[in-house]
Structure formats: C-alpha cells, structure tokens
C-alpha cells in the first residue's frame, strides 16, 4: 500500500523507551502505520506490544521517544479507538451504554435511550446481529466471547481514524473473526487505519497488509509488507535465534500418572467413551462447549451432561470435588476465572496443587516447583513475588497452564487455553497436551482455533450456533473444513 512519503503515516512512533523498574520493556521501538492499511503488530509474549499500544493511546507514559498522529505530536488520545487486551468494559452498565457512553464527552448531556440503543444496535450489527438481543443486559452478564465482541463494536463505531486492536480475535470463533475482518476491510476503504495484534498466523496473512515485529522491546522488523516475508522469517524474528521452536518433550517433563481413566460423556443422543490418552476437542460457539465443561469441572449444579469415569456414573458436586478427583481446568478468561490478582506469582502457580494435594502448609518446595514451571514454559518474570499484573497477557495465560504441569490431572479441561499465547508457546502447549495424554490422561479442549484442534485431537464434538450437538468427528475426519461445516461457522 502507501509506502511513499512519511507524511502519509497516520501513526509514527519512533525510539519509544519504557522501563518498569529494572526491566527495559521497550527499547527504541518504532512503529509506523500508514493511512488505510491493516498493520499487524507481532511479537512473542512479553515483547512489548501491549505496552506500545498503551503508550500510543495515552494510557501509559513513555520514558522517551516521539509519537505523531497524522503528523501532529500534540494529538488527542481520545481520537484513537482501542480494544485493550485485558478488555475495558464497565460491568454494571448495559451493553448499549458500554458501546455509546465512552464516546460522550458532554457531562451534562442527556442519555437518550432510544438513540443510544439504535446506535449500539448498529454498532453490534456490524459484528454480529445476534448480539442485539443483549443490548439491555449489564455487561457483567456476558461471557468472555460476548465481552470481546462488544469491545470491538465499541471501537469500530467510534469514528476514529486510527483503531488499535490488541488481540481482538483471541476469544472469537472463526465466524466472528471472519465478520470482523470483513468489517475491518470496509473501514480501510474509508481511509481508516487499523493496527492489529494477533498470534494467529493464518489470520494475519488473511487480513493484514504490513507487519512490524517486536522482540524484547525492539522493532526487529519495521514495516515489511506481509507478501515479502515468509512465516518462517516471522517466527524467527519473533522468537530470536536463541529460542528453539519447540522444546522437545523431554522425558523428565512427563508427569508420572498412575494409569489412565476412561471417560464417558452423554447428552441427548450422543454417548461417547474416551479411552485413556484421548484428546477430545470441542468446537463451536461458546454455549455448547460451556455445558460439557461445567459438568466436568463441577461448576454447574444441574449439569446437562452425564459423566462416567471408568464406567461408573459420576457427578462432580463442586470444583473442589472435581479437582480432588483429578480434573484440571484452565480458562482463557483469566481475569474472571483464573488469575488471583492481589497474590504473587508463586501463589498463583501453587493454588491448584494446594487443593489437589490437600496441603495444609505452604511448602518451600512450591518455590522450586514454581521455578521449574516457569522455566518449562519460558515465562519471564522479574520475581516470583511480583504480582501477575506485571506480566504480559499471554504470559499470564501461561501461568494458568503452568499451575497444572506437575499435578498430572487425570482429566484436563481446557477452555481456550491458548488465548493470547504466542506461536512458540502454543507449540509447547500442544506438546504438553501430547505428553499428558501419553501418560494416560484425558484432555477435553475447547478452542476457537480449529487448526489447533485438528492438530491434536482424536475426537471432536461439534456444536451449532445455538449450542446443540451437531456432530461427532473422529480421527481422520477432524479437519478444519469439517469442523467449520459442522459448527455452521462457514461465515
């Protein structure tokens, strides 16, 4: 696209520096976004993408560097629309208010309900007309997926010339992502520029024109058209030479499981028995998989699914019951369902083990275990005693997975576990799943990325848009195309 004069850049950030305490998070980072382009900002977890976005949008002060928006260094940060990685919804306000209120600056202005609803409905229709039914609900009642869509609708309807999207698709289904991309393309035709952060290589290729790659806070690739750069180059730029693409599943890493279990799942006409070592995928919009997951982790009081373990009917009465029976659980909704925000990293890591192993005392061994887990997932942390909020989004996600590494759960339930996790780490996670399964455990995995399911699962239950079971795929039948068809997500 426009690679001509620098004056056409909507955003030009040069030599941005930022340190948190002792860590240099951004070192002379550079980012230039031209008018009307979709610009991918790439980098591993903790590379500094979100930090750069927060600096550009004015919610964080930079230590050094210059930023110009449309050639102005004195720009109004409010004129840039942002979808932050950790979302910024107002839980007690309705969806309609969440979309419309932030655009208002007139403190004494009237809230015209009809106008606001209509405006919000229009914004939502661009993403998914089904969401209009949620307009009057408080945002606290939405699930992560819906919250993400509402945020996106808010940003896209803002009328801003520059829209920064920090991993907007991390919680989206394939169909939703497709609709988003269509909308983005339409916006670029109006001259609006989009900055997009994503760890999903395929969608970057589909939608973005240009990329900038950050590694350890430096812009190692500065504005290269995606057409001119190969996947391999991108990965190498992101990960650096030092880091292996995938850590070999070393024997030491294999958890010592005492044999496996068979797991039976039944609902309506579906009855499925999984042998030890199976990996079951759940594909489709959130409503369907949520039922299985709730039954398995004991969070539903009246589960719609019936479960058998080793042939015996089993009902998990509470999450504690499930955990003590060997069920592990990782959710991509880290803020709500995972991270203990006021507790240090070591407590966050040890939390599941303390329950599962019925520990009474905080043992010093936990520190060693925590260090081991951090190492295996290549988690960079300043200190085990820092708070999770000092970690990047993807790194926090890794913490939640690391919780379970040493526990060898018999059944591991994953709800979008790779949300926001970088490509290198994703591979490690696939490996871990393989290792866990090889030790006889059963993995039940919901992901909106069909490619990851296709890569790892031996069974997949597909759900349609209303949450009803729409198919059971086995072994070779598990392809992205088949899942897309079965879930009705061919946009």
């Amino acid at each position, binding site marked *: 696209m426009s690679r001509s004069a620098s004056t056409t850049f909507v955003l030009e950030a040069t030599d941005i520096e930022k340190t948190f305490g002792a860590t240099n998070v951004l070192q002379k980072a550079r980012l230039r976004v031209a008018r009307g382009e979709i610009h991918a900002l790439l980098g591993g977890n903790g590379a500094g993408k979100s930090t750069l976005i927060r600096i550009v949008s004015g919610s964080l002060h930079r230590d050094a560097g210059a930023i110009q928006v449309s050639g102005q260094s004195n720009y109004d940060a409010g004129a840039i629309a*942002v979808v932050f990685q950790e979302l910024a919804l107002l839980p007690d*306000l309705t969806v309609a208010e969440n979309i419309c209120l932030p655009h208002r600056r007139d403190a004494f202005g009237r809230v015209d309900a009809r106008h606001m609803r209509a405006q919000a409905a229009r914004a939502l229709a661009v993403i998914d007309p089904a969401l209009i039914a949620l307009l009057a609900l408080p945002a606290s009642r939405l699930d992560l997926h819906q919250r993400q869509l509402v945020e996106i609708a808010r940003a896209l309807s803002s009328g801003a010339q520059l829209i920064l999207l920090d991993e907007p698709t991390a919680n989206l289904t394939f169909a939703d992502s497709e609709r988003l991309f269509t909308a983005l393309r339409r916006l670029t035709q109006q001259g609006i520029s989009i900055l997009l952060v994503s760890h999903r290589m395929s969608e970057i290729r589909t939608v973005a024109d240009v990329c900038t790659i950050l590694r350890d806070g430096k812009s190692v690739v500065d504005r290269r058209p995606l057409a001119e750069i190969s996947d391999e180059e991108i990965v190498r730029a992101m990960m650096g030479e030092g880091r292996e693409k995938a850590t070999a599943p070393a024997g030491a890493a294999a958890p010592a499981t005492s044999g496996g279990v068979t797991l039976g799942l039944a609902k309506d006409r579906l009855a499925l028995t999984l042998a030890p070592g199976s990996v079951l995928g759940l594909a489709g919009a959130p409503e369907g998989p949520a039922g299985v997951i709730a039954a398995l982790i004991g969070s539903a009081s009246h589960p719609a699914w019936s479960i058998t373990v080793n042939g015996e009917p089993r009902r998990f009465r509470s999450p504690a019951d499930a955990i003590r029976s060997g069920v592990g659980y990782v959710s991509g909704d880290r803020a709500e369902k995972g991270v203990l925000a006021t507790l240090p990293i070591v407590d966050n890591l040890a939390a599941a083990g303390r329950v599962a192993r019925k520990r009474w005392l905080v043992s010093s061994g936990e520190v060693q275990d925590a260090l081991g887990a951090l190492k295996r997932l290549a988690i960079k942390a300043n200190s085990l005693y820092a708070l999770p909020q000092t970690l990047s989004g993807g790194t926090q996600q890794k913490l939640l997975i690391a919780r379970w590494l040493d526990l060898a759960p018999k059944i591991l339930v994953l709800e979008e576990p790779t949300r926001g996790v970088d490509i290198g780490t994703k591979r490690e996670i696939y490996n871990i799943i393989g290792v866990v399964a090889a030790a006889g455990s059963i993995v039940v995995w919901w992901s909106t990325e069909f490619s990851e399911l296709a890569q790892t699962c031996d069974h997949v239950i597909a759900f349609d848009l209303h949450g009803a079971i729409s198919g059971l795929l086995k072994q070779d039948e598990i392809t992205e195309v088949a899942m897309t068809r079965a879930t009705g997500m061919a946009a």
Partner: protein
Amino acid sequence: MMEALTVRGPEKNMAASEETSAAIPRSGSASRLLATYRSEIALAVAILLIMGVVSFWSPQVFSYGNIANVAQSAAPLVIMALGVLLVIITSGIDLSVGSTFSLSGMVAGLAMSAGAAWPLACVAGLAVGIAVGAINGLLVTLLGLAPFVVTLITYAVGASLAFVITDGHSIALLDPTFYLLNGGQLIPGVTNYVMFCLLGTIAIELGLRKLVMGRWVYAVGSNDKASRLLGIPVNGIRAGVYVIAGLLAAFSSMLSLSYISNSEATSGANMMLQAIAACVIGGASLFGGTGSAVGAALGAIMITVIQNGVNLIGINSFWQGSVTGLVILVAVLIDRLAKVRA
C-alpha cells in the same frame, strides 16, 4: 462475593427506561418501571408491612400526624443518604458526613447568633460542607489515599472542630423566621422538608439515570481502570461526588437546624452509619457500581419508620436494637426473595 454484596439486582443501572428498539419485544412502560424498581418496590412494601404490624399495637401509626412526624424526622437522613449514595456508587465511602452535619450546623448557628440573617448563615454552613467534601475529594484523587482513611480523618477533624468553634456550647437559634426553611411552603400545599426530599431524590435519581455524568458515576464505581482507559474523567467524578455528599450533609443539617432551632456539636454523630445503612438497605453495594436514589431514600425512611414503630409500640429501649436489627433482616430477606422470584 460481589454478588453477595449487591443486595439488589444489576438491572438497576439500565439507562434507558422509555425507549424500546425493534429487536426487543416491547413491554408496557408500567411493567418496565415495575421491573426496574422491583427492589425499591419490595422495600416500600416492607415499609408498609412494618407499619401494618405496628398498627396492631398502635393504630396511630397511620395517622396523618404520625406520618408527617416520620417524614419530618426522616428528611435530614434522606438528604444525607442521597449524597452518601453517590460516593458509594463510585465504590468510595464517606465517613465524614456525620461530623460535617455537626460542624456546618455549628458554623451556621454561630453565624446566626452573631447576627447574620438565616439565609446567609445557611450559606456559611453549606460552604463548610463543600469545603469538607472538596478536601475529601482532593485527598482521594490527587494523593490517591483510601476513601476510608481520608474520610475517617476528616470525620475526626470535623467532629473536633464542631466543639472547638463554640468551645463545646450548644446554640439556641432564636431567629423566628428560620423555621421557614424547613416548615415553610415554597410550593403551596407541600411543606418544604417534603419538597426537598422529593426534589432531591428525583433530581439525583434522574441525574444518575439520564445524564451522561450520572452514568459516569456508575462507570467509575463499576470499573475504575476501564473508565480511565475510556477517557471518563474519573478524578473529576470522584472529587465531585464527595463535594456533593458534603454539600448535602450540610444542607441536611440546615434543614434539621431549622426544625430543631438548636445547634449541637454532636448532632450528626449517629447519622453516618445510618446514612450508609440506608444506601445499602436501598440496594447499593459498597463495591460500587450499583444503587439508586429512590432506594437510598426508602432505606432512610425504613430506618426512621422502624425507630418510630418501636417507640409507638413502646418496646423497652434496651430491646430496640434487637428489634431494629431483626426487622432490617426481614426486610433484606423480602428483597432477596423478590429477586429470586424474578
């Protein structure tokens, strides 16, 4: 826990109340109001129930005189609770309102006894309220101190100054026209204290529901960090609610002064906890983001009605706390039930 702390449902914060959209089935505006104010209606029913029970012992509870009396003595608490509510919605707390009540009353009393006309003296009293609120607001926003600590400090300082300025003496207010503030009728047929309560409640309720600023108050309490990211003037809103709370506490004091015609340094001592309780009974959560003016006003009225009821029945004062506590428990359970049903 959040849920546990929210005595009322979340639907309270819906902004729109008049409008429907094509996609959403239209329901009558009466039934809509019913749904929005379910919790408040439950509270109102509970209040009537309490009065009904009291009437077995003391039929006078429903007499005009008694109702006027209850309204009169509830008025200052209603006004104060409205201010406290705003602070609570932003997830703050204001412990200083009780001593602001006392201090502003003493200042106005002093001004009057020094010969100032009562409207002028009231302005002085209100200025005290604004000043205390502004100090609270500044310490909370600029220094980022915890509201509990800040308002505990201003509470202590205010209570102390209320004694200092008159050396502990109470002041009898002799201006024969001062009663007009409370007992006059700016609107013919409606005594001022009723008018101020109604007006205050309606103004705050509408402001919260219909003004952008009002929605910001909920936004700030709902998620401070997100509000900042979204460009909502968080500090302005925070500082503002403390100022309004101070102003309303002072106004509440003027109203009470006008009725009692006696200014005392400890007059507001019990009111702080009552005002907070009124908000919480009325559905506000101390974690912020929820609460309504109508609820807070009803909460204040309920507290007063219970007090009136135990007095009318003639329950031994030692037992009054127990009875009051249990009645509040029942009222809260009724509200809970109303919520479960819906």
